[in-house]
Structures are given as structure tokens and as C-alpha cells.
């Protein structure tokens, strides 16, 4: 190849540059992400519990997992977090970004207000939210409900309400990120499109659905995929709001909390590895589905 470099096509030369650029990153990803992940994958077939003795036990961990009712509860919770968290947060963040985009006066301040929750730590904020959820007269939410004539709601002390109650601060904290990305995407739409629409006499709704949203597609794809991954991996807020229990009665426990508990409270590393393989599979399938569905035709 050496003496014949002048015979390489432009495409081939570009390819070499591409691989040159990718060389260090590829080494990085392989050693820092894939190799350890492979080790974890391998560990899922063993009964490793921290120290040395790692015996191959085939699919025993997997069958144990599938037969564990707690596992299915956890899977249900994890998908509930996804199914509630993504649509609500996407809708809310888009609406806020849409209107925020049109505001000139105080735009920076407003944007900062919506972003601050994203900068806070889960432990501190979870504590505040737990107080909001207390029954009257301590908890603000119940005080308002009573004031408006409604009965009180047991937010965290309820196997049905606890999951949405724990999800709420997570959505609250995550929205700032989505708003900022949406704002960036909205700003990127060239004015010419809107000007043409005005000339055509199109109303605000038509503009929204025929111009804005289609042009926001890459942004939307990015946010749906990353938000889905984030909600499927939810941990911090659940841990902080339920004292690490995922209760009451496992009603708020997501898969990552179960993994954490298995690995670092029960020291069953092999079994925990099995659960991470399952998590990985779920994330992979969901993301691929979404990218395919949302890809431009």
C-alpha cells in the first residue's frame, strides 16, 4: 500500500482518516466499556459472590430470575416509569420550550428557573419532596387538596400512588435538560419557513404540525431515545425517596435498584450481573425500536 498512495481514491483516503480519528476512541470504548461489560456478561453465568470462587452454573441465574415474582414486579415498575415518564416529560418540555422560545423579555431568567431543578442533587430534593407529600397539615400538596375540597391522598404510603409520586420529582428534575435541547432545536429552524407560512395564511396549529414538528425530528428522536434510557435506568430519586427500599411492598422498585441491592447488599455479583444483562437487552431493544420508528422516511 505504501508506495501506491497516489492510487487511493478520495473515498479510500477519507476512510483512512476516519479510522485514524476513530483509533483512540475505539480502543477506549473496547477496554473501558465492552470488555468490562463482557466480563459482567460472563459473570452472569456464575455464582460469584465477591471473593474468588467463581463457579460456572450455566443458566441457573436466569431461570432463578424468571421465576422470581419480585423480578416481574420490578420489570413492570421499570416500564411504568418509562411509559409515564417519557410522554409526560416530552410533552411538558416541548410546550414550555415552545412558549419560552417566543418570549424576549426575561427569557434568560425564565430559562434559568426551568433549568435549576436539573442542577440539584437528588438526595436533597427528595427530602423536600417527601415533606410535600406528607398528610396535612405538614404536607403542602394535601393542604391544597383539602383547601380545594378534595380528600387527602396518601402519596408515598400507597402501593398505587407511590410510583407516580416518586416519578414526579424525577420528571421535575429532568425537564430542564429537554427544554434546553428543544430550545436549541427550535432556534435552528430557519425563519424563511415561517415567513412562507405567513404568506400562505397558515394558522398557528398548521405551522406547528406541518413545519415545526417535522423539522424538529432529529431533536425529538434524540430526546425520546435519551429520555427513555434515563427513565428505564431511574435510581437516584427512588432510592432517596424510599430509603433505598423501593417500597412500599416493592411498588416503586426499578430494575437498577434491584441490581444495586443484589450486588451491594446481598453481595450476589453473579445474580446481579444477570439482571444487568436483562437491563441491557431491554435498553437495546427499546432504543432500536424508537430510532427505527422515528427515522425520517
Amino acid at each position, binding site marked *: 500500500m505504501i508506495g501506491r498512495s497516489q492510487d487511493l481514491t478520495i473515498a479510500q483516503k477519507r476512510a483512512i482518516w476516519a479510522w485514524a480519528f476513530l483509533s483512540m476512541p475505539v480502543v477506549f470504548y473496547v477496554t473501558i466499556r465492552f470488555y468490562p461489560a463482557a466480563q459482567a456478561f460472563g459473570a452472569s453465568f456464575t455464582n460469584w459472590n465477591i471473593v474468588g470462587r467463581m463457579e460456572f452454573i450455566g443458566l441457573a441465574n436466569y431461570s432463578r430470575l424468571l421465576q422470581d415474582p419480585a423480578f416481574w414486579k420490578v420489570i413492570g415498575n421499570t416500564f411504568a416509569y418509562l411509559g409515564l415518564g417519557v410522554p409526560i416529560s416530552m410533552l411538558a418540555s416541548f410546550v414550555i420550550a415552545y412558549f419560552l422560545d417566543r418570549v424576549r423579555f426575561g427569557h434568560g431568567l425564565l430559562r434559568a428557573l426551568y433549568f435549576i431543578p436539573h442542577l440539584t442533587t437528588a438526595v436533597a430534593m427528595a427530602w423536600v419532596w417527601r415533606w410535600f407529600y406528607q*398528610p396535612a397539615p405538614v404536607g403542602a400538596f394535601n393542604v391544597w387538596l383539602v383547601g380545594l375540597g378534595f380528600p387527602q391522598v396518601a402519596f408515598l404510603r400507597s402501593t398505587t400512588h407511590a410510583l407516580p409520586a416518586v416519578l414526579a420529582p424525577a420528571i421535575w428534575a429532568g425537564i430542564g435538560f429537554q427544554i434546553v435541547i428543544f430550545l436549541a432545536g427550535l432556534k435552528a429552524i430557519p425563519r424563511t419557513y415561517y415567513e412562507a407560512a405567513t404568506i400562505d395564511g397558515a394558522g398557528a396549529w398548521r405551522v406547528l404540525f406541518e413545519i415545526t414538528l417535522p423539522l424538529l425530528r432529529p431533536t425529538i428522536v434524540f430526546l425520546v431515545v435519551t429520555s427513555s434510557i434515563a427513565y428505564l435506568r431511574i435510581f437516584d430519586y427512588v432510592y432517596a425517596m424510599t430509603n433505598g427500599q423501593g417500597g412500599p411492598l416493592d411498588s416503586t422498585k426499578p430494575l437498577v435498584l434491584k441490581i444495586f441491592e443484589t450486588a451491594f*447488599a446481598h453481595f450476589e455479583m453473579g445474580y446481579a450481573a444477570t439482571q444487568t444483562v436483562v437491563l441491557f437487552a431491554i435498553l437495546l431493544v427499546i432504543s432500536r425500536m424508537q430510532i427505527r420508528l422515528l427515522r425520517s422516511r
Partner: protein
Amino acid sequence: MKTGKAAFWLGAILAALWWSGPARAQVEIEYWQYTFAQRVQAIDELIKRFEAANPGIKVKHTHVPYDDFRVKIAAAIPAGQGPDVVQLFYGWLQDYLKAGLLQPLPAAAFPASEVEKEFFPIVQQMKVDGKYYALPTAVRSLALFWNKALFKEAGLDPEKPPATLDELVEYAKKLTKRSPNGDLLQAGLTIDMGGQDHHWLREVLIRQYGGAPYSADKKTVTYNTDAGVAATQWYIDLAAKNKVGQIGFLTDGVTAFRSGKAAMTIDGSFRLGALDGQKGLDYGVAELPAHKGIKANFASYWVNGITTKAIGAKQDAAVKFLKFITTPEAMELWMTTVGELPARKSVAEKDANKNHAKYGPFIRGLSYAYATDFVNESAQRKVLIDMVDKVALKNVPTKEAVAQAAAEEQNLLDAFYKK
């Protein structure tokens, strides 16, 4: 400092460092515990004294935030890092043994007969297959804490806490305040299975109702009996029937008591430091209420063990260090610095300590205390938390909930002892 002198000292220090490098005369061992200001202070002082008495040994003291103490250990040991002497909760002993993290304490240095004579009986749980694996410097037990100001306000004598379970409920009713539409404003007693209550139920209430939580060989759950159900029902009735408290009130029992919104709470001696630091709180400590003349208590303790990593010279050093921190003098220091009770009977039962206003009730409780032989403390705690939640949130009949809990715990025990 004159240059000449400085150069001499510099040279001497460098020489000493070089000399100690290949660890010829010097042995260095590592001690790990979780971050708790007073314990860190106590260990630092003990290390100072130990190193002074043992010039060839250096002890490196590392402490780790509590939430992730076990994470850290789980990461370090398999990588060959970590402590030579390690602190662990007595309830984790089985986990650590299963994971091969601890070595038995040499019988020459820690003869079993001496341990059994000197230390409180609960320490005997650290003996597995005839060998001791760890020893405590201090132990904790439970007591009844009460808020004197709230007692006075309710017309009760602030110096007379309830002595029986019946009195407990009676007083609690007087101390409970609700708003006109029934909202709990002040709880008579905290109800928090996730706190110390599960220990209270397990080792105290069940016994006081005539039962026992586990069999003598520790391998069978024995609270699925009328006694167990009765005790559980009594506990559940505190909120359900007598309405003296509420699960989740002010997020947890400790917070409720600290904030002055709960008049009484069952808690451990480790709570004394925090309560002393709570502005404006005037509280008293009493022995746990008795029932039908039966007194029982739950004791827990953190122990120190020698890891499998410590071999040769390090092992000798580790043994010496462990011996040092379990001497009576170390325990006295520990009590004044950390506020935990001495693990040696002779030290704890000195009159000055036994009659102390705050430590006294805990020490007296030690003489009739039991320490549960946990195989998996967090899982077993969860079983009881879930049991109470099932009755409270899902209306499962108490008898059924107790039966389910007993079965779940039995599974945990079986899975452990089978291996």
C-alpha cells in the same frame, strides 16, 4: 530552624523513610470503619496509644461514608486491597464468612473461655464452628425515649415514663393530638418498622407475648404462632386501633421525635448523640416497657475482625491491635467519646455506669438482651416491613401476613444454611 539542624532532620527523616520502605522493622496494617465522627475520633486516639506502645507497628486508619461502606469493601477485597482489620455489623458476619473475608481469631490470643466470661453473652454469636471471628469494643441496646416537655403538657409526670406495655398505650393516647378533621398533629409513639421497631417486635414483643422468634439452633423461624400473631397485632393496633401514631408520620420515627412532634420512641443508644445535639429537646431514657412481668431487649454491636488478607507479620500486628481495642481501658475511652456501652460486663456494670441517667437504662437492658442471628439483615428487615405494610395497605389479615413473613424468612434461612 538553623540550616544545619534542618538538613540533619531532613536527612534523618529521609533515612527513616527509606529504612521503613522495604518494611523491615515496620509493619503497616490498615483499619477500615464507616464514617462516624465520634468513632473516628476514638479510633484515632486508640491508634495513637497503640502505636506508642508498639513502636514497630503503624496503623493506617481509613473511614468510608456509611451508605457505601459495604460497596467499598465489596470492591476492595476481591482486588486484594482493603483492610487488615475491618469493622462490620455483627449481623453481616455470615455474609462476610460466606464471602471468605474473615479469618478466625487465634485461640491463643482470644481464648473462648475468656471471651465468654468477660463479654456480654450476645457476643457469643461471633463464634462459628467453635472459633471466634470478631469482637466488639462496644454494644448498643434499645430503650424508651420520651419527651419531657410534651409529658408535662399532657398532664403526665415528666419523670415517670411508662413501665409496661399497657401503660405505654395509655400514656400514648394522652399524648396524641389530632386536628378537628383527624389529621395527626402529634404522635404519642413513633411507628416505624424501618427503624428499630423490627428489632423490638422480633426480640422483645414476641417474647413478651410468650413466644420466641427463632429456634435454639437459629435455623428455624418460630414466630408463626399465636404468640407471634398476638404481638404483631398489638403492634399494628397502635396505629390501627389505638391511633397513637402513624406509619410515615414526618417521614420517619427519628425525625418525628427529634422535631418534638412525637412524644415517645423506641430507639437505640446510638441515638443519644444526635438527640443531645437537637436544639430545644428535653428528653429522658427508660428501660423498655415490660409485659406480664417479661423483660426483653435487643442488642446490636459493631465488631472488628481480621481479614483473610492479613498474613504473616501483618496478622500478628492485626491480632495485637484487635486485642488493644478490646481492652477495658479502650472501652472506657469509647464510652466517653462515642457514647456506646462497653462490651465487657465488668466495665459496663460499674455502679457509676449502671446508674447513669442516660446510659443506665441501656446497660441494665443488656442483661436481658438478645441479638438476632441475621443471615441477611437487610432482607430480613424488609420481610417485617412488608408484613406490616401488607396489613396496613392491603388489608391482609394479620394471621396471614405473619405466616407469609415467617415463610419468607424461613426461605432466607434455608438458602443460607443449605450452602
